[in-house]
């Protein structure tokens, strides 16, 4: 997953997005979006649309184990920065334009990040599963982390 995130085109994209994110910055800050940069789950919950995940995360087993960004941003610092930039951009764009679906859906790239993070913590447990080749954790552990 990391490999695919750090591929050259992705990096080029990130560069341009760095700028773009800056442009989107005004409304984003206005929308308390700046807190996005932090890792505190409460920061995510600043946004009403994040609230339901926040609530169910707090009542789930992962509450003690993982904060939002443990699952939604890659562990390695470089990739983490890149993904935060990407997410920040998507978030600000979505929020500025208000143009996003009422039922929020995962982008493929975000899903890949999450899948990567499952392994980051559970590698030992799933090593023998992985032996068979590509597998999606979320296919079976859909509501891990929080309800949808």
């Amino acid at each position: 997953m990391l490999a695919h995130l750090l591929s050259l085109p992705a990096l080029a994209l990130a560069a341009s997005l760095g700028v773009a994110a800056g442009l989107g910055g005004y409304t984003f800050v206005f929308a308390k979006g700046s807190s996005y940069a932090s890792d505190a789950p409460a920061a995510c919950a600043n946004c009403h649309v994040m609230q339901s995940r926040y609530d169910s995360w707090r009542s789930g087993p992962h509450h003690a184990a993982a904060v939002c960004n443990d699952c939604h941003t890659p562990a390695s610092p470089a990739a983490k920065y890149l993904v935060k930039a990407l997410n920040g951009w998507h978030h600000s764009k979505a929020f500025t334009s208000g143009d996003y679906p009422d039922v929020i859906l995962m982008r493929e790239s975000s899903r890949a990040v999450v899948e990567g993070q499952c392994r980051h913590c559970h590698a030992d447990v799933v090593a023998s599963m992985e032996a068979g080749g590509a597998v999606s954790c979320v296919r079976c552990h859909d509501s891990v982390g929080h309800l949808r």
Partner: protein
Amino acid sequence: NISGRQAEAKNPTVRVVELTDETVDPAIWGKDFPAEYDLYRKTAEMGKTRFGGSEAMPRVPTLDDPRTSVSQSKIDEDPRLKVMWAGYAFAADFREDRGHAHMLDDQGFTKRQQVVKQPGACMQCHASVYPAMMKLGGGDLVKGFEKMNPMPYAEARKLVDHPVACIDCHEPRTMTLRISRPAFLEGMRALKASQGVQSYDPNTMATRQEMRAYVCAQCHVEYYFKGPEKRLVFPWAKGLGADQILAFYDEAGFKDWVHKETGAPVLKAQHPEFETWSQGVHARSGVACADCHMPYMRVGGQKVSDHHVRSPLLNINRACQGCHKWEEKELKERVEGIQTKFYSVRNQAMDALISLIGDLKAAKAAGRSDKDLEGARYLQRRGQFLLDFVEAENSTGFHAPQETMRLLSESIDFSRQGQIALRDPGFKPTVEVVAIATTPAPAPVPPLVK
């Protein structure tokens, strides 16, 4: 095969013995993979669910049948089955299926072996035949397959020692899933060709998730023996649907036997789990057989697939609750609700078919001509195959609740139309009557064992 290479790289377990394409004995594989092996052996256990699982009936071993237990007899539970199968081996013995550990004995000692001479082709789904086929074919799997099919059963039996084993589903070096059955490879190739995909090969083209269903579909499928070579064939060239399979048999003019009481050229459907599952919402959602029948479980620090293959209702927590947040009791009730509805209509369809058979029998006794009975006989063939298809399917409707009901409604329609046709020569059925040659069935061969 990419996932194959990945596996080689990642496969963590330390191998204590080296496994090759000749390693048949699962006990040896068990040295490298004790968790899976121990679970695999548990398939000898028996346990009943409302409609599935299996009930252990203790029996006193006899010379010609050393088994100390069998599962309940379905033809005794519902004697109408004997009427449906009159003149065919299944009327002699048909039991509820049980765990994989029993497959070789149950096949060898069923009374069906005594009323008909069975071919080596039977072995494909009841024994670990992969190494035996390779040996027979001198390294050529298909050649070995073609040699084993026409053998007398007793002869083929001497070539195998185990029920389905590791080597039948796994490539020994990487442990990735592998299709070892030519009949499935050929069946899938024909199916995909009908969809415009040429020379399809699961072993190189299927996703891992697909393989988690395909390994089961090597056996849990409808089949027939083609020609004198007794080649094992999966009738999928027109599609996996029951209607498409029926059309395939009609076009081939194929019949399993001529019904003893009615003279109709009928078909026997057998365990179409794969075909039925493929029509349901779980298949549509990418949920494979292994997800429910071999769910992951924690053994020591590792998650392993539960190789104790069985009814998921005996393992609801792992088999269902990952995806469905309902309580065990609730999930069980949902399944049984679907199954109970299915079973009531299955009985309704059975009644319709039995009355058609009764009417045909009477008409035949009354000396009505074959020409006269052709329409009703073809309607029996249709109605009976569609009913047998969902009856032989082992989930009691669960694998595809709407589709199995649809097939039952068609079955009822055809059986009842057959009754009308018998009473009214002028009646026009809703389907074209297809002429199937009804050369009298071969006289039953003297028992093999005795």
